[in-house]
């Protein structure tokens, strides 16, 4: 039987058009889905960044508050009143109790502490220390 070439061509065209239309719809669908997924994931990430930013800021604030609380306790006035409150007679070291050292570990010349030590040791270069029993 001889095929009607005209009908065959027409059917081919229709099939091809339907396939093309289907392809367009398919591509469209896939792109919308990809776009939505990407944007939703991006949104999630941004949200989590935002939350972390907030958390970081609040932790920073908490640290600042805590540091300040401790620093406020170290002022000379507070230390003075704390010593008084606890009946402690702590004093900053006197000149003859302090040895100022150079970077090489040797003491600076002419310090009152070194002179006092020399005096105690009877003019010697090194200090004599009293034993605990005395």
């Amino acid at each position, binding site marked *: 039987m001889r095929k009607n070439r005209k009908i065959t061509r027409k059917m081919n065209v229709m099939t091809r058009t339907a396939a093309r239309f289907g392809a*367009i719809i398919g591509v469209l669908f896939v792109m*919308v889905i990809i776009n939505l997924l990407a*944007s939703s994931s991006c*949104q999630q990430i941004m949200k989590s960044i935002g939350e972390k930013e907030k958390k970081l800021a609040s932790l920073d604030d908490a640290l600042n508050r805590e540091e*300040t609380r401790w*620093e406020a306790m170290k002022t000379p006035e507070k230390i*003075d009143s704390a010593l008084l409150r606890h009946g402690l007679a702590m004093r900053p070291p*006197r*000149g003859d109790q302090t040895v100022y050292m150079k970077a090489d570990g040797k003491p600076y010349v002419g310090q009152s502490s070194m002179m006092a030590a020399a005096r105690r040791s009877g003019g010697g270069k090194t200090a004599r220390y009293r034993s605990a029993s005395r």
Partner: protein
Amino acid sequence: MAMRGESVRFWFPVLVLSALAAYAGQKLVRSHVDPSVSAPNYVFDLEISARRGSIFSAYGKGYPLVKSVPYWEYRLDPVALSNAVAAKAVRRKREPPRPKNAILKTVSDALKLDYSKLKAMAENTKNRYQYLALSSDPDVHRIVADSTLVAGVAIEDRQVRQYLHGRSLSHVLGSLNAEMVGSAGLELKYNKMLSGTPGTVRGMRDAYRHELYDKRIISIPPKPGADIYLTIEPNVQFEAENAVKWGLGEYGAASGWAIVMDAETGAVYAMVSMPDFDPADYGKASDERKMNRAVAFNYEPGSVMKVITAAAAMDSNPKKYGPMTHFNTNRQDPNYYKLPGDYGHVWEPTMTLTDAIVHSCNIVIGKVSYDLGPYTVFKYMQRFGFGEKTGIELPGEQYGILKNPHKQMWDKASWSRAGIGQFVAVTAIQLASAYQAIANNGMRMKPYLVDRIVDGDGTEILKRKPEPAGRAISAETARKLRQMMTGVATPSGTARRAAIKGYSIAGKTGTAQKAIPGGRGYYPGLYRASFCGIVPATDPKLVILSTLDFEQRAKFHQGGNSAGPVFKRIALAAIRYLGVQPDKPEELEDGAEDEFDKILDERQGRASH
């Protein structure tokens, strides 16, 4: 070929159409989920304020003086409370709503407020957002912010400027006004640097006013303000403040001020001005309290200026004037016009320049000043920095008053008066700076308070180096002068009560009469007592100035008797904290109690042992 052409003709429009459709589809879908897409009203602009920079002492990062601290401000909204917002919040959590009184009790307990007052506030529904408290306590915040416990309390984040040392150093640090703008002291001077740069966010919010982070259009983070590091030594400052306070109480002075300066560099270790104020409550302080007397107050210095006159004489004509040059003490000398007197003193017929300094003889120094003439006296006063600002980093610094004889003729009586510290007005910082020149072998350095400034991102934008302000006198004159001045703080000098064992002190007392405004003479019996000293005299490390201002007649109004002991207290502390070595160690007995320890004992109410 034909197939390929056909394929391109087909697929190209397909792709373009697909892209457009995808965009439109996404918009369509998102607009149902996300109202901001279809509603441009949800765009918002937010300015994020920058953290204001801190101010630190010489000890650096671990020792802040001023900081901006995040606080929570709590305000009561009686309407919200009445509308049982709490109940709604609670219902969501399926718990029974709390009664109003229970909520108020929780708030009053947490914020330590009077319950009855809080209840009265809650009744007043006309007044919304009534201030309750400002707190940085996270435990308090946890309770008040808990919607199951509390409702009707609005919480706002606020940066509060915290002055960690209270009133200490208030005149130097200054204060902020209600808009967080510097209104005094360093806060004003460095306001722009401390403020930083605010950040900006332009973004979108959803219907619940939650930010849509993926919709941020602009996001510029704030740049925190610069941190300022001072030369102030907090312990020396504290002790200097205590010493001045002690002086005010002990001698009945109305006000007082003190400066501790590095003899070599001009760095200021301590600056005190009493009465002081609370920087956190600047608005309530009187103008009298707000004035920084160390830099913003002009006054006639009195005899502390005699040293400057002697310096001018010995430096301008070393052959004629020396430490041992003799002068006659006759006040009625016909060669001079209206010499100042030395009331109550009977002098030997002649006196050396050194003795004139040690005993503070007005007649001799008046004669020297008269002989030098106004031009020479003016020239040296200018060299010592009088009549001009020292340039210290504090607003409101005064110039002092020093008339230029080239422009304005000096009255003949003032030729001798200028030499003894009358007819001129100075500021305390000028005086300390002038003595610093003597201590630093004649080279005056610009006094400074700010050591360095570090930008918010950690870059050092300023590192202050000691800067010479000019040579006042030769090194030789300075050395001789210091030697002459060592007699003042000795049993025969005018300031024996300023003497410190183990240390030689080159200083000078001043007991200046207080001038009546408008040039109508002096208030009878009212004085300003000063002592300015260099420690130790042989190898100067510190320059210390102390002044007490009397507003009523006082028994110990002389510089040596009142300002001298204040100086001594400050010097003892500064020596201890800054590790200044004695130049006369032979005077220090082994085991002898240190005078500073006695002061500490006395302050802390302990008996010395």
